């Protein structure tokens, strides 16, 4: 048996194992309900969801690539693909998610101390600890490194004072990974990466109502919050490097994954041409009746295809290495732009039927479309705005210099 054949055989053994385990453990009542992770009311509270989350968490397959020693699945990329195929086959989905899994966990595995990994990874793997991101401040958006939340060394603990904004899901979070200022004399080199328990005295969370009517983000206030010294991740004043690395994981999740942030906006799940035919009607040869709209739908669908081909290509090129690179900036920009264009086109296609806010007279898809259109405006702002991504591409990828 050749090495390649051995790998194929091993994968098939794994497939059989995964199939049997999934069939035994996935509650059929949850079939096809993906994306129920964190709604307006917090995590899905049904009994079946709780059971499924617990089982997957214990198996470690909700974080399939995390090392086994911390409770992760310890699977190879080919095994992850097989697991995904087997889940798709029966309509199963991953109940473990959120910022802990997508962003903080990978960063913790790369930069955390052994004690920190042992303490925090299992909670992420089991989906028991929900993490939020304390990055932006009212005065530090695109210029994130100008952040001012103070962190002072008090000998046996740190004392944190300041305000964070756009902290996603802070109202439900157990823990916050936070960028804080530990040296006021330097900019980037005065920032540290701190893990803060959201139940600490002195933390106040206020949800922010957005134009979409939803409140996915919060303002978070820190007043004399005591944080144990062991919660500093990486070196003192060395938080900027870690913080940037985490953003790469964030952008990879936002732009790179099919159905991730940028492309999932707009409610409607039918293909755009089907929706257009439904609302606008068809003319000669079954074409969308409005020829200008038809051309723009085609242009959009071609952009979407180009984007998906690029996702496939970058996965093939990475050869199973899932670590994000600077190309994530390209994907984040392209994905968010295409997602927004889709939402704009959908609304145009739906006409007045796309204007419903709530209540009777509108379908679920129509209501989701307008909310998605508004919510999707955030995709070119969060995770580093489109302009910041262009700065990253021109400086880090193309090697252009800073203006003097």
């Amino acid at each position, binding site marked *: 048996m050749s090495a390649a054949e051995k790998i194929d055989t091993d994968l098939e053994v794994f497939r059989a194992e995964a199939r049997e385990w999934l069939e035994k453990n996935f509650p059929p009542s949850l079939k096809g309900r993906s994306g129920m992770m964190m709604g307006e009311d917090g995590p899905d509270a049904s009994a079946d969801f709780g059971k499924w989350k617990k089982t997957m968490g214990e198996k470690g397959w909700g974080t399939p690539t995390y090392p086994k020693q911390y409770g992760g699945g310890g699977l190879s990329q080919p095994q992850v693909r097989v697991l995904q195929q087997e889940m798709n086959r029966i309509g199963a989905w991953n109940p473990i998610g959120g910022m802990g899994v997508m962003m903080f966990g990978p960063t913790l595995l790369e930069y955390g101390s052994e004690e920190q990994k042992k303490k925090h990874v299992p909670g992420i793997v089991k989906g028991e600890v929900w993490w939020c991101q304390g990055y932006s401040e009212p005065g530090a958006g695109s210029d994130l490194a100008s952040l001012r939340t103070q962190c002072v060394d008090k000998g046996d603990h740190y004392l944190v004072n300041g305000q964070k904004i756009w902290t996603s899901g802070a109202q439900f979070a157990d823990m916050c990974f936070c960028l804080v200022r530990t040296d006021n004399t330097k900019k980037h080199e005065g920032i540290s990466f701190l893990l803060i328990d959201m139940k600490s005295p002195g933390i106040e969370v206020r949800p922010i109502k957005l134009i979409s009517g939803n409140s996915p983000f919060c303002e978070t206030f820190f007043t004399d919050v005591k944080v144990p010294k062991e919660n500093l991740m990486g070196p003192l004043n060395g938080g900027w490097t870690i913080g940037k690395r985490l953003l790469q994981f964030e952008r990879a999740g936002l732009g790179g994954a099919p159905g991730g942030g940028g492309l999932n906006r707009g409610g409607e799940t039918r293909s755009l*041409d089907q929706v257009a035919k439904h609302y606008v009607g068809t003319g000669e040869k079954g*074409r969308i009746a409005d020829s200008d709209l038809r051309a723009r739908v085609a242009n959009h669908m071609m952009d979407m295809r180009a984007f998906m081909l690029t996702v496939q*290509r970058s996965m093939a*090129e990475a050869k199973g290495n899932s670590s994000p690179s600077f190309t994530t900036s390209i994907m984040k920009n392209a994905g968010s732009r295409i997602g927004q264009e889709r939402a704009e086109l959908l609304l145009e296609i739906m006409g007045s039927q796309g204007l419903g806010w709530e209540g009777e007279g509108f379908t679920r898809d129509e209501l989701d479309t307008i909310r998605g259109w508004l919510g999707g405006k955030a995709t070119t702002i969060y995770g580093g705005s489109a302009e910041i991504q262009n700065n990253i591409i021109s400086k880090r*990828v193309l090697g*252009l210099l800073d203006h*003097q």
Partner: protein
Amino acid sequence: MAVLNEEQTMIRDGAKSWVQEKSPVTAFRKLRDSGNADGFDRAAWKEMAEMGWAGILIPEEFGGTGLGYLTLGLVLEETGRTLTASPLISTALTATTALLLGGNDAQKKKYLPQIAEGKLIATLAVDEGAHHAPEKIALKAEKSGSGYKLNGKKSFVLDGGTADLVIVAARTSGKPGAKGGITLFLVDAKASGVSREKLKTVDSRGVANLTFANVEVGGDAVLGAADQGDGLLESTLDRARAGLAAEMLGQAMQSFDVTLDYLKTRVQFGQVIGTFQALQHRAAKMFTDLELARSCVEGALQAIDRDANDVAQLASLAKAKVGDLVHLVSNEMVQMHGGIGMTDAHDAGLYLKRARAQEATFGGSSYHRDRYATLLGY
């Protein structure tokens, strides 16, 4: 860049160094200025054939290497970078594809080994007007004895002035604009009744208008099934479009690289102009579009190699996306270079001109957006 095997990497690297050494942009410029009537350098074409490029699509039994479309695309990308003028597109890509897809054993034996050796220039003659429109073919082929008699015109035929073999898409039934009724014919360019008029076009490559006046061909000149050549023609064109897109991608890469280099060296207001954010963001946009277009081009070539069922969609996607790209990048090349980019001595104009000619070849971006929608049923 797609994941390449060892052989493909070797061919790509070989093409890269040959092009730099033997066929830089100055070679194309020299060709243009010399008033070369062929539109390409025969000595260079000989070398390209010796390296096996003319036979990349041709199976070993007919004298080629049979390495496929992605591999030919790698070479085209490199030759595109320096605007190398050669019969790669007309002969090694398009005519070869028609012979491979439609030819019987005798036809393949007769022509493919000569093409692989670089001894036969061949081309496909489709369009008859200013726009790409295969369905509007009017050139008539009527039964005559055991063969056919051809009457009509073909316009803007690639290497039409030098081709030895012209594959003519003719109408054997139905009216122009009607579906069906197309037949492909293998016509000797020296046959009685064929006249050709070489055109001087903005990109200085060898295109020609051809006229067919009572041109007699035998029954064995029919390529594929008589009167049912529509599918063969479209399949051939799709492969030609994807290959041409690879050449265009190479050009766009080079225009971009040269422009980026200029942004890093040109000083105004006491600093290199690449430090200005207005230019940085336009460069980032070009780079993003380049990456997306590359995925389309490679996706189309790979789909052809594995004989996927969405080749037509992907070919239209690639041609349209890379079509938009070459215009964006070549225009920015002129704009970002400023006055120097307007001079004939600078290369920017050459890229700008070539992009226009390619837009018109085998369908422009609008044509392919419309076709994409039609293929998807809307």
